[in-house]
């Protein structure tokens, strides 16, 4: 769908009625791959919501005190314990990588191959740093005796929710990092400029792929915003 006609369509809610009632394409100007990614993210939202809601239910229905997260996740700087330090750094690392991804998408659409590729690579390295810190956090807690069935700090449910929620998020980040490295390579090689057919999909490469990858990456950051608020801060 060319933008020429897109600009001539009604906008807002009137536009929605027009799009939904139109022939063939309901989502005007949205490439199919991008829409499919949105549908995937919607389903993923439900999965993470189920985890966080079961955590809410578990935490508010236990009669034993919940572990104090700001002490459990504190790091010692010298001999002073700083509450939630590692988690705060992880949050900043993930937001940094989200910002570089947003810029990569922008430069991708401007067909600025070099900038786009470097920014995708920077995003991948940010994600890798995040996963590294999460491994450190997990091993620290496991050493302190946190298990899915018990822990020395309080309510027994804490461990299972912690490993399940951060683990599932960590897997998302890891998969994202793998794809970011692959797409950094593809961008550097110029696949998106030449329209080279993909090895797996045999579709013509296009910079819209960078935006689709960006949607996934921003979603991973979005989920972390909720985990940070509900699991670590609450």
């Amino acid at each position, binding site marked *: 769908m060319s*933008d*020429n006609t897109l600009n001539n369509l009604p906008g807002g809610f009137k536009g929605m009625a027009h799009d939904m009632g139109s022939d063939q394409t*309901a989502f005007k100007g949205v490439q199919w791959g991008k829409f499919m990614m949105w549908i995937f993210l919607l389903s993923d939202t439900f999965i993470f919501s189920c985890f966080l809601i079961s955590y809410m239910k578990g935490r508010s*229905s*236990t009669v034993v005190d919940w572990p104090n997260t700001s002490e459990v996740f504190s790091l010692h700087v010298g001999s002073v314990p700083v509450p939630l330090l590692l988690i705060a750094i992880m949050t900043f690392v993930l937001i940094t990588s*989200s910002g570089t991804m947003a810029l990569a998408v922008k430069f991708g659409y401007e067909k600025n191959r070099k900038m786009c590729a470097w920014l995708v690579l920077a995003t991948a390295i940010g994600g890798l740093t995040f996963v590294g810190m999460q491994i450190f956090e997990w091993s620290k807690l496991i050493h302190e005796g946190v298990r899915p069935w018990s822990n020395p700090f309080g309510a027994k449910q804490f461990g299972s929710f912690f490993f399940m929620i951060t683990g599932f998020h960590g897997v998302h980040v890891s998969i994202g990092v793998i794809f970011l490295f692959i797409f950094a390579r593809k961008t550097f090689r110029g696949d998106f400029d030449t329209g080279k057919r993909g090895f797996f999909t045999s579709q013509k490469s296009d910079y819209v792929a960078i935006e689709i990858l960006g949607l996934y990456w921003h979603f991973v950051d*979005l989920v972390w915003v909720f985990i940070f608020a509900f699991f670590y801060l609450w």
Partner: protein
Amino acid sequence: MDETQNKEQSASTHKIGIYLWIWGLLFVLSFFSYMVDWFAFQGLLRWGLILFFMFLKAGLIMAFFMHLFWERYALVNVLLWPMTAIACFIILMAAEAEYTVFTRALYFFTGG
């Protein structure tokens, strides 16, 4: 490159300033939400501030980084209305949790 392609491109590209602003705001908001823990606010103030910063951050990421602000309403509505189902689920489970903790307190401590 013909004219249609040119126009399609300009529609998807936004000034770099807006991304940098949102990026900066996300840093500031994350810093503030960390400060909520640092100053050890308690009770309603704590929960209110956590939720406020959380929704602001989530909104900024979705609207600008994920480009929803620039998408057509047909897509935005398809993506956001299902969230009401999640809200219903939260309310149901909160009620269920209250019942569970009540029965646990009753049977664990008083023996029923």
